[in-house]
């Protein structure tokens, strides 16, 4: 009985880690959106583009951080729980 409970807990752990990794997909969409819109804007007005690269990276970093959080949860489930 106890072995089965442990197996079930292990299963839950791995399923949870897999579900947590889905969050990274959202971060991918977000980062792609930012980069794509930046490129669209930069092609319309190339002379203004270099001054906005800092904003581009800050935006990418913020969008990516939320995905990294879910990745962290996945890692915690895999290796720490």
């Amino acid at each position, binding site marked *: 009985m106890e072995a089965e409970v442990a197996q079930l807990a292990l299963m839950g752990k791995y399923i949870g880690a897999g579900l947590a990794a889905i969050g990274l997909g959202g971060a991918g969409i977000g980062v792609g959106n930012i980069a794509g819109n930046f490129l669209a804007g930069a092609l319309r007005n190339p002379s203004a583009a270099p001054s906005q690269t800092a904003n581009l*990276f800050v935006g990418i*970093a913020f969008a*990516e*951080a939320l995905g990294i*959080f879910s990745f962290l949860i996945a890692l915690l489930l895999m290796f720490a729980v």
Partner: protein
Amino acid sequence: MTDVAETGFAIHPMDQFIVKPIFREIEPGTCVPAEDIYEGCIKWYEITNVTVWMALAVLAIVALMVFGSAGRATIPSRIQSVCEMIYGFIYKMVEDVTGHDGVKYFPYVMTLFLFILFSNLLGLLPMSFTTTSHVAVTVTLALLVFLGVTILGLVKNGIGFLGMFWVSSAPLALRPVLAIIEVISYFVRPVSHSIRLAGNLMAGHAVMKVFAGFASMAVISPVAVGAVTAIYGLELLVAVVQAYVFTILTCVYLKDAVGGAHH
């Protein structure tokens, strides 16, 4: 720690992140926190692979800067132009983002950038140790920035620094709600600041080792070796970009403290 038979990897992808002392081996069973056996554990004064690679990063930075500024020629040598490019790049970033008042904190930002950049790049050497992939290291850096910015803001702007949380451009009814959100996002800053750097590097290095593990399977080994090469190139980009992102976010946070009263 799961063993080879359980996970099916020839190299366990997370083994590269184990902190171990370099002058001795930890004997199995001498460091078991659950059973109150601590004698064999790493002591605070012990030299581990983390300290060695951090020291190497610092030495590399010192070497670059000392040799780079030794000549001080009008027509710069290659090493001198590298130093000048890094210096000018960070200086311009601090000036652009934080404004003229922020320039006096440039040395700290430059130190952060160089330390993170060199730790990231040295971590890419085979058999080396990526110190910035450990949350303990990045949290130290991020907390220093967070505490520094908070103290600086309170000293410079007094109680007016708290006005940052009271969004005066929003309708009055919404302001208390926004204030709560702003306070939460302010305290999440050091978390996201540190986890971003550590998470990116750890994920990249783990992926590299996963593909390195696949290289031991004869059928797919050419594909795996190619994948490792490609990911290595990507990691080189990530190492530089993450150092840049950490630094620019430091500048963004610094701007709140330096110019917090008037914006």
